[in-house]
């Protein structure tokens, strides 16, 4: 049997020639596999994109049975690609990668949905529409600006529609209002009227979703896959204890379960802005900043929600039924 030094020497001498054969994508030293079992015999391993019958190959493209007494082995590995990370530019771009409106940092491309038969990218309002501060048609970049996304090279879509977020006033006791009211009421008492004035703080309406859609400029630039999960199997409904999985820009594939339903929650949007959301789903720690917009699927890969907020130990998710009805979407 050939020794390691001998096999390495053959590999060094013959690797360039082997890699020149049309089908070979990698060479190395490995134990020869015979009849599906790994033997103890060292070989020059040739990885090919696809195994084909010897006869169909031109003689110059065939991998010889042995090279100067060292056996070869042909292994089908497929085409080898660099593993693109979630914060890099990807075309087609699958769910789970960085995306964002021109004026934000970055969020996550959730998944593809349909509106009036057209394919749309689904994510959050605060990812695709800069928390209401955007115009329909604004450029959407993949990757998002903080990940190096630039115009015009990384333009992938245009903002199509968003559900405006209703922000509440930060709670404050208005001294001026209190003073005015005291004055009015003193006046009422003075004239013997039984009318009294009271202060009302204008309360913001409750929100159901932080959602927006963007129209991809080219259909070939987006993919129906979600990184590390695959295809969506349909629509589901989240209940207490439903197992969840999501694929996001920052924390990748994570799993947890629904710990609370019917959640009413105050969410901070920075710069003192706060919005109240009702009928939300809560899960444990399964997200970080940049994961906003991730599609949330159950254990059977049914779409149940859209991730948009969280803390160190919780994640807040819009129900997908509210997202779809607010924007008129289908899968």
């Amino acid at each position: 049997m050939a020794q390691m030094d001998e096999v390495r020497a053959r590999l060094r001498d013959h690797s360039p020639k082997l890699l020149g054969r049309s089908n070979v994508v990698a060479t190395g030293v490995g134990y020869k596999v015979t009849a599906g079992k790994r033997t103890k015999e060292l070989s020059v391993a040739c990885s090919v994109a696809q195994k084909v019958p010897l006869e169909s190959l031109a003689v110059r493209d065939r991998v010889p049975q042995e090279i100067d007494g060292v056996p070869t082995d042909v292994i089908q590995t497929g085409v080898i690609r660099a593993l693109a990370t979630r914060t890099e530019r990807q075309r087609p771009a699958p769910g789970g990668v960085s995306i964002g409106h021109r004026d934000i940092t970055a969020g996550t491309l959730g998944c593809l949905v349909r509106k009036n038969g057209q394919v749309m990218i689904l994510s959050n309002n605060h990812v695709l529409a800069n928390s209401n501060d955007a115009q329909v048609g604004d450029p959407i970049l993949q990757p998002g600006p903080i990940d190096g996304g630039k115009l015009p090279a990384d333009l992938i879509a245009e903002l199509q529609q968003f559900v405006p977020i209703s922000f509440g006033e930060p709670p404050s006791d208005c001294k001026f209002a209190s003073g005015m009211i005291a004055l009015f009421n003193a006046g009422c008492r003075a004239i013997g009227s039984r009318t009294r004035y009271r202060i009302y703080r204008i309360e913001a309406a409750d929100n159901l979703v932080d959602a927006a859609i963007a129209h991809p400029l080219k259909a070939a630039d987006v993919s129906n896959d979600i990184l590390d999960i695959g295809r969506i199997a349909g629509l589901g409904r989240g209940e207490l204890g439903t197992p969840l999985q999501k694929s996001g820009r920052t924390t990748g594939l994570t799993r947890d379960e629904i710990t609370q339903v019917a959640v009413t929650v105050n969410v901070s949007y920075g710069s003192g802005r706060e919005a109240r959301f009702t009928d939300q789903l809560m899960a444990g720690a399964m997200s970080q900043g940049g994961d906003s917009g991730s599609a949330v699927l159950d254990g059977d890969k049914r779409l149940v929600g859209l991730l948009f907020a969280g803390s160190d130990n919780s994640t807040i998710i819009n129900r997908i039924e509210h997202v779809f009805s607010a924007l008129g979407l289908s899968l």
Partner: protein
Amino acid sequence: MKRWVAAILLCLAAGDLLANGDRMPLTIEQVKASHERELLAQPGVVSVGIGRDDQGRPAIVVGLDKPHPQTQAALPRVLDGYAVRTEIVGTIRAR
């Protein structure tokens, strides 16, 4: 005529039943909905939802941004028969 009297009596009975909730047990969703504004008005409360208690029974879960001993002491332990539990969920931010 008798039919009209019967119909009116039935309507009155139905109205009475709706007005007096104690005759129909409220669902945890109804109890949560009717109390959540006052719960969210307490200092430090950031969320109110439906989860489970230690025994796995449905419970109203009040989320706090950080420990607030006064709020925690002031919150009811039970609302209309449903357990109320607090949890430190932290400040919730858009991600």
